[in-house]
């Protein structure tokens, strides 16, 4: 089979086209957001919020409201509860996060188990990439574009917030509001990525691309390009692999992203374990011949 055929054959199926489109959008938005999450140190928060939106999504399904609305409400509840537990008891933040998000996630599972149309809702947990409907796709496009636009328009403020919230405050910006904006976008983005990889694996798409890009550059503006490019390429590769190997598509996307991170971790010329040594050896050789 030649390479063109390899790439084109899956595209003859409408469901594959929709899967690829959905994944590409989710990959871009998640990757852009991940740049801030890994720098602020909010990876665990990303994990928490992406899990805690589950009951919100299920309740939204039951009452026929938009998923994003339910997700936002429960993201807010989760973040508030984490803050309250941390600030008003001797329990530390990581434990507070662990308690709140697992409890809310479990509540979501309970709600799914008592809601009649079970097949649909189980897809929220593991994603249902190959069953993306046209309305699903439209929702992903709308939410994705909104989240992406806000992130890009406000990128400088968000970076300032991540780097130096005290200075942000001193020049009249509100670090609290910027933090809340980022958390809100995290909730929105979680909904976008639900379709692709499901609640359980969303966090991978929210962390791995940013972390990978961080190992490749010293410029935040470049991270914002490198992360989505890596994320989209990995996601497309993951879906093609799952098509030909007949494996779970969402999981394959995450495995591919993890594999690329491992390669960068080892071979990045700036930060990589082996890459920096190779670069040093090259410089030495160049010196010796000069």
């Amino acid at each position, binding site marked *: 089979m030649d390479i063109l055929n390899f790439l084109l054959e899956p595209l003859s199926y409408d469901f594959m086209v929709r899967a690829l489109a959905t994944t590409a959008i989710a990959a871009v938005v998640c990757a852009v957001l991940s740049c801030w999450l890994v720098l602020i140190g909010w990876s665990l928060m990303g994990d928490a919020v992406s899990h805690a939106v589950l009951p919100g999504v299920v309740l939204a399904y039951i009452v026929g409201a938009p998923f994003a609305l339910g997700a936002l409400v429960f993201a807010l509840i989760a973040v508030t509860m984490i803050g309250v537990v941390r600030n008003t008891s001797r329990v530390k933040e990581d434990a507070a996060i662990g308690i709140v998000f697992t409890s809310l996630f479990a509540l979501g599972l309970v709600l799914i188990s008592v809601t009649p149309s079970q097949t649909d809702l189980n897809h929220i947990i593991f994603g249902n990439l190959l069953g993306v409907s046209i309305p699903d796709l439209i929702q992903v496009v709308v939410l994705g574009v909104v989240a992406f636009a806000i992130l890009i328009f406000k990128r400088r403020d968000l970076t300032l917030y991540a780097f130096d919230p005290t200075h942000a405050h*001193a020049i009249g910006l509100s670090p609290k509001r910027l933090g809340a904006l980022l958390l809100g976008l995290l909730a929105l983005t979680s909904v976008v990525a639900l379709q692709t990889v499901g609640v359980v694996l969303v966090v991978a798409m929210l962390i791995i691309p940013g972390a990978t890009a961080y190992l490749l550059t010293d410029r935040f503006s470049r991270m914002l390009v490198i992360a989505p490019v890596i994320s989209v390429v990995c996601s497309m590769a993951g879906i093609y692999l799952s098509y030909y190997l007949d494996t779970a598509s969402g999981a394959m996307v995450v495995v591919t992203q993890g594999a690329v991170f491992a390669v960068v971790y080892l071979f990045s010329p700036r930060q990589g374990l082996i890459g920096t040594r190779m670069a040093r050896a090259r410089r030495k050789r160049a010196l010796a011949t000069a």
Partner: protein
Amino acid sequence: MSHPAIVVDNVTVHYGDVLALDGASLSLDHSRICGLVGMNGSGKSTLFKTIMGMVKPDSGRVLINGHAPVKSRKEAGIGYVPQSEDVDWAFPLSVRDVVMMGRYGQLGFTRRPRKADRDAVGQALERVELSDFADRQIGQLSGGQKKRAFVARGIAQGATMMLLDEPFAGVDKRSEATITRLLRELAADGATILVSTHDLHALPQLCDEAVLLMRRVLMHGSPDMVLRPENLAMAFGLDVMNRD
């Protein structure tokens, strides 16, 4: 200009059960450099954060140019040079990026810099002698250069007040002299400068006045007076005389 630049009026701050500031009062005039002396936990950083409005006092108030700081803080322009430990030096930003952040308060919705902003950043970098390092990642500077980068951010901001938290920690003597000269120039231009420091030797050359802080202001006067051993003993406890 009839009002003092900064007034801290009987400010008390708690973090949970911990008393960080206990009725601290302080008044600073324009164009002055004031050294803030006190041991760890004496409330220096809390005092800074209260002046900037990051921390709300339980009681008492802060006035900037005679007004409550909600609006006046932004108008006055408060430049802040954080302690080294408070900065993520691995953050992927260049020196120029960091200095540009000083301009954000004056920029539009997306903070896209205009030519005037790029020029202001270029001039600020020149003034702190970092023009050749503008494109380095912020963590790849020496200790003194890092401090100067943040001073440049305040200059680009057009700050009329500068708060510096331990600017001489981890800084070599030459950089210390450069920073001292720079701050003296800024004060001569009208800026009000508050510097917290452990480095008591640097105080007389740098400061017009000094404050001894131990959760409240124990003493506010000339650097020589504040540095008298019996006064330092009050702020640091008795072991100070054997230090250094």
